[in-house]
């Protein structure tokens, strides 16, 4: 192979996992979460990551996830240390005068919002430093606190400008993340700036403002609404318009996400190797539609199950001859059974929706990203050398406590 050929070669990214396989992983995880009082969630997260990583094959070689569930578990314990002072503070606060209480809770919200930035960065660091490709580890350097401050001040600006400053915020945070990302001894670079976000973001912003505002103004003007107490409910035409607004929102969200991800990620490079990502809006919108139909289907299924169970209970209670509400109620009188049933039903609903979101949205997005990605001159990466192991990280800690870790 000549140098010219090597330079011109394009590395493909494939995704080899199936939804079926992921479903088995998740169902197994859910069923083990019950006897372990929820602690299996760290193992489930680890298995899910193994699934995603191993099945992402970049230029012929899969990613490898080397993190373990125990690391996540211990990280969570450490995160508790952050929360205890906040908890104690809130407890003392709740005994003060009401103005202090309001300010105190506001303060707590602000602190948690700030900590989330730290947590998100650390979680990314945890994942990257446990990702191998061709035997070389990725890493995220930079300072998680610096990132948290950045994100925090940008979000204040977001509030002040009613979200108009978003493209600058997004590009600033993306740059901080990517320019601190390393593959072995080689640093990632990102060339994209706010322009990559501006068109899709402002487009979506304006479109939704027009549709939502238009619907509200139209229904107020044409009096196509009725009042239930002090709450206005839309009339028939307004309901249709509201559904239209949701569809427009989903479409614009799909457009924004695919456009900005494609444009931004296509400016990422690592040395001479350049990433290029193409995702179509239709593909992501298709997933949204699939998700809505799946949720509707699951809801129908759950309702049918409840109807059948209630019917059965009613038949049982009326078997004695009198079928009145009181005897039906008496079957639910036993408190413990009642609560156990409610908890079970709740867990099933929660699990079903979690499963759907994982199988359709998370899986779909990952696969779109993987399949849409190509790498130019991947052979330049062969000279990357490994760096010393980053053992400082104990789990992703706060991210687990704040529930912000994705994938």
């Amino acid at each position, binding site marked *: 192979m000549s140098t010219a050929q090597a330079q011109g070669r394009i590395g493909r990214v494939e995704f080899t996992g199936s939804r079926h396989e992921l479903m088995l992983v998740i169902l197994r995880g859910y069923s083990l979460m019950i006897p372990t*009082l929820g602690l299996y969630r760290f193992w489930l997260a680890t298995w899910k990551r193994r699934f995603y990583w191993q099945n992402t094959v970049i230029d012929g070689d899969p990613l490898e996830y080397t993190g373990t569930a125990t690391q996540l578990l211990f990280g969570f314990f450490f995160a508790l240390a952050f929360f205890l002072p906040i908890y104690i503070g809130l407890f003392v606060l709740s005994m003060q005068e009401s103005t202090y209480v309001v300010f105190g809770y506001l303060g707590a919200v602000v602190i948690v919002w700030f900590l989330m930035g730290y947590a998100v960065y650390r979680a990314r660091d945890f994942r990257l430093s446990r990702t191998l490709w061709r035997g070389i*580890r990725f890493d995220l350097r930079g300072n998680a606190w610096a990132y948290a401050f950045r994100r925090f001040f940008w979000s204040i600006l977001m509030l002040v400008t009613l979200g108009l400053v978003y493209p600058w915020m997004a590009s600033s945070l993306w740059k901080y993340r990517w320019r601190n990302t390393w593959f072995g001894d080689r640093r990632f670079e990102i060339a994209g700036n706010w322009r990559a976000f501006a068109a899709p973001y402002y487009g979506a912003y304006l479109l939704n403002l027009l549709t939502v505002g238009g619907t509200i103004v139209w229904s107020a003007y044409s009096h196509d609404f009725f009042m239930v107490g002090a709450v206005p409910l839309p009339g028939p035409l307004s309901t249709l318009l509201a559904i239209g607004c949701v569809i427009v929102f989903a479409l614009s969200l799909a457009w924004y996400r695919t456009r900005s991800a494609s444009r931004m990620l296509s400016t990422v490079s690592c040395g001479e190797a350049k990433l290029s990502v193409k995702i179509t809006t239709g593909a992501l919108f298709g997933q949204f539609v699939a998700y809505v139909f799946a949720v509707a289907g699951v809801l129908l299924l759950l309702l049918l199950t409840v109807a059948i169970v209630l019917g059965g209970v009613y038949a049982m209670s009326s078997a004695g001859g009198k079928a009145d509400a009181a005897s039906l109620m008496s079957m639910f009188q036993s408190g413990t059974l009642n609560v156990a049933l409610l908890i079970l039903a709740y867990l099933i609903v929660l699990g079903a929706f979690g499963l759907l979101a994982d199988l359709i949205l998370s899986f779909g997005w990952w696969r779109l990203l993987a399949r849409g990605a190509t790498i130019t001159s991947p052979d330049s990466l062969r000279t990357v050398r490994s760096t010393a192991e980053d053992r400082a990280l104990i789990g992703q800690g706060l991210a687990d406590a704040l529930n912000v870790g994705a994938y």
Partner: protein
Amino acid sequence: MEFAARYTDGLTADVRDVLCVIDLAADPIALVILDAQSREVIDRWPALEVYLLHSRMMELRVANRQKPSGARLAVAGINDMRSALNLLPQLAQRQRADSWTQFRILALATAALASVIVAYLYGIPLLADRLVAYVPPAWEVKIGDTAATQIEASMTKGKGYVLCDADPNSVANLAIARFVSNVFDGLGSPFRPHVTVVRSNIPNAFALPGGRAYYLSTLIQASRTPDEFAGVLAHELGHVYYRHGMETLIASSTTGLLVGFVLGDMTGISAAAAIGTNLIDNRFSRRAEAQADRFAAEAAARLGFSSKGLVDLLERVASDDEFSRALALFSNHPLTDERRRALEALEVPVAHPKPIFTDVEWQAIRDMCPPPLPPPLPKQISAS
């Protein structure tokens, strides 16, 4: 026998296709890694140090304890995988050992968590009892004041309570105050409870930390005898005496922590966390209700009125709402049937029951908050 693999040395990202053969003559036995084309030796791995990693289906990933942590042999294809497993029979050993370790960690962590939960469920009422003793009464009174303004604002949407009888020296208010001081007489409580009768269309009565108790007018209208009114009032005074408000505050602030731990959401904003916290807190509140019932029964025995009135009144109010009975565990009042049995067991028959309020007083209390008058009839148009 040999198998093909992709090899990385863990030092550079230079992946290459290799052939692996086993060298039984070497000591220790070694896996020899050869370049696929030139067949020159790239590396020798001690065969006993190799182990299997988790990998996707139809692939084996092999690492070596003695080599850099990124050194890998990736074996794909059914034939190569089979030969690799045949050549290195001990390959899966470490993976099995690892699964066992994981299982033990998980079991240990679960056992620890379970014991924390059990200790919490049974221990926190005791602990809250003890901790409450260390909260200075003056502090509790201050907390009660804060809670009172918050509740007032939320109940009346910021308009403030409509007092039924603002004059503290009216017959009714004096009668209630006398009853309260009779109940608390000789108990050595640091609190001096104060009862406020407030106009509201909710049939309820409640007590706050520090001695404030509220009796809502609709509940007075629902009371048929002085005993019923006195029973419920004594029950609320029981909450004051046992400092239940303070106990709940202590208990529920730790419940959030525990539930967050189980669900992994320390912020407690998810519905699951809210429901879980509620369930556990209600366990404590049911215990507190039973304690307050006992206080009411004891007060009744001491002052010579019948504690049966408490149950009668609650039952009359609760019968309006059958569904609430089905969800009794979620409400902060225990099942009336359970309570009735418990109270009946406590009841001491009074030989010579004496009225707890005089007829005049009882009438005054009943008249504190008369139900609103019906809207005036339309004026007759006089024919002129």
